């Protein structure tokens, strides 16, 4: 029982980061029908800034806001430089554009920074544990879960209680109709990218802390987890994205724990089998959203 509880907390901690990443992916997808494979760059670029900052005497108190702010700015720049050029294009064009952004950013760091690992110190508290009965709970997991709850609450408030949120939800439901009703497309799209960047920035803080290093392709893994979680939850569904992230994190940790010794290294494979089964029975994901066909 204690092992299960331990794994649940570990899984929720991991899943919370996935949830934040997935939510950022879902926000943009809802507005633009863009499955953003450049979402990981919102971690790669802040990751390199983290490396730079520590080499210039910064500490985590100053690096954390740097990560969040740089993720927001990066997201807005990517929208302005790349996606605004192809706004209204087919989903496939948008998808290819996002791949292009990813490869350009990776190649840029590869060519002009380094191909190798760039390490920086993790925060001293990141692996500390709290003993609760027979459980050893990582403080890091507790902080991640707590911050995620606060951020999700804030995001919910933003989407439900503000004009921006109303415009965003309206645009996500039917972009053209929202425009006819007076929603400014530029503002809502930039707002969506800023929100996506903010969520990636918060997730990035924890991701970057745990990694302790950055490489040109550092964004691939978080991007894949974010996209995968968004797909599991149901593309375009914000609640689904959160649910998908938590489900993915729990599945990874629980499977790793439950699989017999000898096949534990197939954990990722089993996760994908579960996802495949999910899509067989619920092709739209856990909380599928009716898609409005654009003509």
């Amino acid at each position, binding site marked *: 029982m204690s092992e299960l509880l331990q794994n649940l907390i570990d899984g929720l901690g991991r899943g919370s980061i996935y949830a934040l990443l997935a939510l950022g992916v879902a926000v943009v997808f809802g507005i633009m029908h863009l499955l953003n494979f450049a979402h990981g760059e919102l971690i790669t670029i802040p990751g390199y800034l983290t490396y730079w900052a520590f080499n210039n005497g910064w500490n985590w108190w100053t690096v954390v806001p740097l990560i969040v702010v740089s993720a927001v700015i990066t997201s807005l720049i990517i929208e302005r*430089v790349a996606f605004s050029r192809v706004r209204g294009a087919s989903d496939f064009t948008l998808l290819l554009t996002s791949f292009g952004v990813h490869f350009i950013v990776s190649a840029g760091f590869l060519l002009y920074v380094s191909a190798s690992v760039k390490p920086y110190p993790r925060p001293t508290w990141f692996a500390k544990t709290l003993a609760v009965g027979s459980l050893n709970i990582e403080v890091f997991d507790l902080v991640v879960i707590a911050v995620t709850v606060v951020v999700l609450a804030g995001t919910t408030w933003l989407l439900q209680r503000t004009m921006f949120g109303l415009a965003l939800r309206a645009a996500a439901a039917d972009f053209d109709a929202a425009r006819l009703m007076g929603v400014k497309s530029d503002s809502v799209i930039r707002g969506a990218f800023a929100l996506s960047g903010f969520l990636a920035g918060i997730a990035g803080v924890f991701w970057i802390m*745990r990694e302790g*290093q950055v490489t040109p392709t550092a964004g691939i893994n978080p991007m894949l987890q974010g996209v995968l979680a968004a797909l599991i939850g149901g593309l375009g569904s914000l609640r689904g994205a959160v649910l998908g992230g938590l489900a993915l994190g729990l599945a990874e940790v629980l499977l790793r724990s439950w699989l017999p010794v000898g096949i534990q290294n197939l954990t990722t494979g089993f996760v994908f089998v579960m996802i495949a089964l999910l899509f067989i029975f619920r092709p739209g994901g856990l909380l599928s959203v009716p898609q409005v066909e654009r003509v």
Partner: protein
Amino acid sequence: MKFRQLMGLLLALAMFAGACSSGSDAAETPSDDGTASDDGGAEEPSSDDEAAPAATGLDIDAILSADLDNCAAEPTGESIKVGMVMDFSEAAGFVDVPGSEVVPYVAQLANCAGGINGRPVEVDVRESGDDPALATQELIDWGAQFFIGPPFADATLPMQQTGGGEYAIFAAASTEPTLADAANNTFLVTFDDNGQSIASADFALSQGLTRAIIFTEGEGVPYSGVNPDAFKAAFTAGGGEIVSEQTYTWFVDTDFSSQVNEIASVADGTEVFFSAGAGFQITALRAQMEGQGLDGITYMGTDAFDATGITADPGGEGFIHTPHTLIESGSQLESVLADSGTLASDAPAFMPLYIDSMFLGIQGILDCGCNDPAGIAEAVKVISDFEGTSGSITYAGTNGIPPKAVSIVQVTDGANVLLDTIG
């Protein structure tokens, strides 16, 4: 519209800058025609200085100590042509990028020392990109007599095929045992995975460590599984016990909560931990282990620690590993690496392997007294007790894996300190 034009201009400038950068790289490797000898390596002696005496044979000390401001008479014999097919991607760029800089630089030194028996050394570097076979063919057309290749089979095998198995290929930075194939003239320049992991196991046992925790990506998986396999076999054969064997994803995982929970139930803190994991992975693991109260564990790893900057990682203090070369402070080798700009690269300990690759090929040419690639390769196969910059290298009687001594070092105050030499 203006923004679009501005972006177009910026893109054009970026592409131009990229092109210029490539050009600069090419210039650093020898010269426009790819020859090291034209790029200052065989500089004319200044009129004020008397030319230094030319070295004979392959005199490594003389080459490494050559003074580019006071060279011997320019070598005029038939060129020795060294082809380098290098992988500049994230996978191998950390070694192949500086490797492709240090070899042309040492070729310059060789030419400055009067060449090899009066023959200049030319080096041509081609990026393997997505088509190592094409890069190899271009170098064959150029006249390469032997090759220095990337550390992975996805490039080395096409190189073998393109050269018809007749060219000696030195996989300079590789420890992959299956890559070595003397029958097809492919050679490692350093110990292989088995060598470094068995040495680690022997060292651990010699320190009285008899309980081990293994991290593996799976039995037989190249590098991330083969190294733990070899450690496990040697450790248990020496009387040690494996108390926990855990799996992980190499170069990806940094959250080991599940593994640590399982380890905590069987470990008592006196164990040695061994894996082929990257430095940043094992520093994360150690933090999680220590967070669970497992403080006394000895952490051992492979050359992956060196490749991922363990000495620069604040969490790597105390880690024990097996680098390829110990570059002594104030040594001639350190001076050469510094002058070539590779001492400050991401993996300076790998650089002597690249230098030795060139020297081994040249030794083959000298031994066979021939210029044909097949003859050179045959001579390389029987090289014995070659004293290179990375240690003594013997191919005679092997499948292309030199039985080199393995240095066991510990990260102490951010630097590698030698603990023992095995083999």
